[in-house]
């Protein structure tokens, strides 16, 4: 996706959204895409709520793929989920790193506020905040509900349309999702940055041949299978 970032080439993309909307999958894939194009990319796990479906659960796999991953090591943290998740200096100081930065921010309205913990985030000129939306989840299933959810968050720059129904995702689900999210975009004035779809679905439905109204982000899935800590 081409857009102007002024003179600075650095990308700082943060992903927020409703619980289980797909923030982590989209963040991971965004980081991998950027690393293929641009080299060093740091992926920050800023989810302070979820004990299971997180970047940190697949940290070793992502490091093998060349990403710098800033996340807690699950086996080095006591009482995860009960005592709360610790935020480290490394996490809060992530903007002092060189290279591109992708941030997976925790769920819901309160989770999104965790982004404010990152030092210097309010002055970061390159920050782009994407709200990930799955229109097949009840709380974000109509244009009005999506608009109302977006309004409850601090202002977002973009929407990522991650509408799907797991392994029951059909063409109808995708096209319906595009209609719904596009309407929400019109209501709020927040543009849709991309339509993100699992790679196997892109292939099965031949989505690359279609005009989806926004760039297609093909997702390699990391969160499927048995939950892991």
């Amino acid at each position, binding site marked *: 996706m081409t857009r102007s970032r002024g003179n600075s080439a650095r990308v700082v993309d943060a992903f927020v959204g409703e*619980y*289980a909307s797909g923030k982590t999958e989209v963040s991971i894939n965004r980081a991998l895409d950027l690393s293929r194009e641009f080299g060093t990319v740091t992926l920050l796990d800023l989810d302070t709520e*979820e*004990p*299971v*479906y997180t970047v940190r659960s697949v940290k070793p796999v992502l490091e093998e793929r060349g990403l710098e991953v800033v996340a807690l090591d699950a086996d080095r943290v006591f*009482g*995860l*989920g*009960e005592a709360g998740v610790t935020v480290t200096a490394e996490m809060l100081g992530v903007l002092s790193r060189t290279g591109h930065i992708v941030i997976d921010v925790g769920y*819901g309205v309160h989770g999104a506020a965790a982004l404010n913990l990152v030092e210097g985030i309010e002055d970061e000129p390159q920050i782009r905040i994407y709200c990930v939306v*799955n229109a*097949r*989840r*009840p*709380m974000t*299933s109509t244009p009005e509900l999506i608009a109302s959810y977006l309004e409850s968050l601090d202002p977002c720059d973009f929407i990522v349309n991650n509408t*799907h*129904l*797991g*392994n*029951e995702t059909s063409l109808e689900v995708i096209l319906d999702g595009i209609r719904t999210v596009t309407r929400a975009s019109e209501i709020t004035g927040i543009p849709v940055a991309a339509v993100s779809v699992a790679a196997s679905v892109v292939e099965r439905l031949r989505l690359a041949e279609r005009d989806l109204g926004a760039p297609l982000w093909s997702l390699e899935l990391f969160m499927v299978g*048995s*939950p892991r*800590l």
Partner: protein
Amino acid sequence: MGVIQGTQRQFMTGNEVVAWAALAAGAQAMFGYPITPQNEIMHYWTRLAPEHGLRFLQTEDELSAGFATIGAALAGSLVFCATAGPGNVLMQEPISMAEMMRVPAVWVIQQRGGPSTATVIYSQQETRLTCFGGNGEGLRIVYSTSSHQDLFDYVIKALWAAWEFRFPAFVLGDGYQAKMREPVTLYDPESAGVNLPSVEPILKPEGVPSVDREPVHLRNTFNIEEELMDVLMGHIRDYLDMSSRVVESEEHPCEDPEVLVVAHGVVWRSAREAVSVLRDQGIKAGGFRPITLRPFPEESLRAAAEKVKLTVVVESAYGQLESMVRDRLYGLKVPVRSLLKPGVGVTAEEIVDSVIQFSKEV
């Protein structure tokens, strides 16, 4: 009046499904205290609350949440509660009262590792606790779910059953089901012809006491042993009478099975897959899943186990399901073996390997 219009296939997490199911069944109130992995039940219930006029209170602990739940039920409210792990241990005090006083309320349990704080994620180690954890006879209805569709269907059914039969009812899930994401069909129970709970004030029903009706006198305490036994035997008779209407199980049968794999809850998913793999390999395996753990489907389990040469019980606990199975199969000659993984998920491959190994041994 249905909060859910038509049928909608949605991509959801288990905890959310619980909140939506309670809403669909007409639940009016929830009491709770935070504990992983059930917190999102409260989060979603409170998000749905303003639009639907629902009540919620986070109490100071699980003891209080359980007693508040009982109070709401006595006032004639369709109410539920949710907890996990050490919270479930604390809940046994109010639940014992609910058993004694026949209070219709529902507890959703999302099992996590035990004992004590252990892990926040998963186990099947609260099976015995949820079935028998109070200081009584376990006069409870317990449904063990294995999918999001089950969570939706059985939260509604538990609410109905609690009021229909006046025993505390439970939906026994676990942290994997709570957090997992999968498609589920939400539907309006009334339109689907599903029984809805019929609710009325228990403590202050219509009419003047001693004029229009007997005074309501709910007791959880008795002065004489024989009096206690009389009251309990009345409850037990009601429980036994109710059992045939409530008991449920599921089988993945085959002709002339030689091995029976028994599992409940989310482990059933792996067991069912393992049974298919074993059959593909020429081993005549069948699967048995108790859906109600209380009352336990003893008849159908015995009927299934009578036919086989080996029964293998699989669970994410150290013998909690196994001891129930052994108890119910007592007298049958079939050997019982088990694959026990307390606090850890069980894969289909592990079950297949175990069955093959046990088949060689017996």
